[in-house]
């Protein structure tokens, strides 16, 4: 069991390198940009896969958490506190090295929050919100849960679109790159392209390892138990409410982190990242990849997000994801990679029924 997991991650790492080399060899080095963005979206989706596939809880609000991450990072790092330099609070922040000086648009100097501080703030806020709404929301089941998470995502979107200070419909742009450590910057720009590619997918690899570990461990077993027969799990001592909440918060934090990093990479964020369509897209990808399968979800995300970002779906982007969602749910609810083709054929023959059904 154990070598299996590490070997899988190693193979994945090799694949990441192979894709890079292939892209360069094919003269398509610029693919790396969309591939990097794909990696961050994949981070959101694998968290959701854990929540939906293992804990069995649907969330249509992941886009909301992604946006919280992105907007907090964007707002704080594009803030200009220079005019308020004299104030005690600002001076204190500056003394604590929480602020940075950066050139503003007019050649002057702006005083903004250090990206690391913004990152921590975003994670804390996201985790806090997830915790706060998770407690009541996770008591709900089925369509109530779906609707509640949908409502959450929509509220976030509505607030973002309606708030002038956050850029309203235009969002926030001019977000500076995030220097993680000297020499490693999350940001656009051709010089950093390769490094960002490996950083992003490296992060995905780390997340996958942690999640794969979790699934095999006592906590992962408890989650699968909750999904399989919640009453029995409770009878065996599993505090189901706490486990569901922890998974919900974990998935939210992954989305927040992805939001922060992608915003720095893109140099900005807009309210469309909080839209219902985005949340649906994430669910569609998890459905395609197989709700119980982390690698399946990763593969589905890599392919679908990349194609979408390169524009292959054109104006029908949303329709494609909607269509995929319906098709997968109708024909292969366990995900395409686990599709039971014989069962499917049996279902299509009129009058006959496939034996047994899934969860």
């Amino acid at each position, binding site marked *: 069991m154990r070598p299996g997991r590490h070997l899988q991650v190693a193979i994945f790492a090799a694949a990441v390198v192979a894709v890079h080399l292939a892209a360069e060899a094919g003269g398509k080095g610029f693919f790396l940009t969309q591939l990097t963005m794909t990696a961050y979206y994949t981070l959101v989706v694998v968290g959701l896969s854990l929540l939906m596939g293992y804990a069995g809880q649907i969330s249509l609000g992941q886009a909301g958490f992604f946006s919280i991450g992105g907007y907090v990072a964007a707002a704080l790092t594009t803030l200009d506190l220079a005019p308020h330099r004299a104030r005690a609070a600002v001076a204190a922040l500056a003394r604590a090295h929480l602020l940075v000086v950066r050139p503003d648009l007019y050649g002057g100097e702006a005083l903004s929050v250090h990206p690391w501080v913004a990152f921590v703030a975003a994670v804390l806020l996201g985790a806090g919100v997830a915790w706060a709404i998770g407690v009541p929301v996770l008591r709900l089941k089925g369509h109530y849960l779906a609707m509640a998470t949908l409502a959450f995502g929509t509220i976030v979107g509505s607030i973002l679109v309606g708030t002038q200070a956050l850029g309203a419909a235009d969002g926030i742009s001019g977000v500076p790159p995030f220097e993680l450590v000297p020499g490693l910057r999350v940001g656009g720009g051709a010089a950093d392209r390769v490094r960002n590619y490996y950083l992003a997918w490296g992060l995905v690899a780390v997340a996958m390892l942690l999640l794969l570990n979790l699934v095999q461990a006592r906590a992962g077993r408890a989650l699968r138990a909750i999904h399989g027969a919640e009453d029995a799990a409770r009878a065996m001592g599993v505090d189901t409410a706490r486990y569901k909440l922890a998974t919900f918060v974990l998935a939210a934090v992954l989305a927040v982190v992805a939001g922060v990093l992608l915003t720095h990479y893109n140099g900005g964020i807009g309210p469309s990242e909080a839209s219902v369509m985005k949340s649906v897209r994430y669910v569609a990808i998890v459905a395609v990849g197989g709700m119980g399968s982390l690698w399946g979800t990763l593969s589905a995300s890599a392919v679908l997000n990349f194609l979408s970002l390169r524009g292959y779906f054109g104006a029908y982007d949303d329709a494609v994801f909607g269509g995929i969602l319906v098709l997968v749910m109708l024909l292969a*609810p366990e995900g395409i990679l686990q599709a039971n083709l014989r069962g499917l054929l049996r279902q299509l023959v009129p009058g006959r029924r496939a034996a047994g059904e899934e969860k």
Partner: protein
Amino acid sequence: MSLDLLLQYLVAGLTYGSIYAVVGIGFNIIYNATGIINFAQGEFVMLGGMLAVSFQRVVPLPLAIAGAVAATAGVGALVEVTFIRWLWKPSVLRMIVITIGVSILLREGALLLWGESVRSLPYFTGDEVSSIAVGGVRFSPQVLWVLGTTGLIVAFLSVFFGHTMLGWEMRACASNRDAAALCGIPTRNLVTLSFVLSAAIGALAGCVVSPITYTSYAVGAGLAIKGFTVAILGGLGNSMGAVAAGLVLGVLESLSVWVLPTAYKDTVSLTILLAILFMRPSGLFGSREASRLKEF
């Protein structure tokens, strides 16, 4: 705020609230027959309005509306037959995701057909500037059309479910599908009928409100959420509750501009939805046990 202004907001709230109520009733009809929450409900309203606008270019208004209602009802039947009918004991998760997917497909289909433009039907009587005065309040005659149509829909459904054979059969089907089937009731067709009925009333509502609010391909999702809020608020499955809840929501939303910037108006219904789900999922008028019984 003067009394007149307050009444003005009230009228606006009741108008929108009636539409929310009809969407909520649509949710209830399908939910009662199948236990499914049909996320695509809002799209039926959108389709009704959009189709009517297109038809109205070639035929007189009443015919255009009738045509739109019939066509949307057909779409409802199609959705049921294509996506719902042949599923074998699907899980709740699967049903939710399927109906969400269907709503997206309908939305994108509308985008394909009509583009992003915003349309509206002409006012049924008078035009944009005509108004009726009652007390100190002035409102468009279309408001009466909206309220009247909603009232007619509610009345029709009461008679249908309360006094017709078909309505009774649907209620039997809703309350115990297997027993109804054993009585020879064609349950599968009744499920289709529930979709047809929901689509039809949704479309009618869409037509009657479109002169006031305009329709475009994207209005469905917002309506679905509000309609769902109304259905839950009134007690899932309880259509009289939905009417009351719809009016309440409409009025609250309308009056919210008093305290909130207009940009945040939509958050009112969303917050109410969350509040009701957290505190009393059985709704204002539903019973605790009933809300638990309909677990898939």
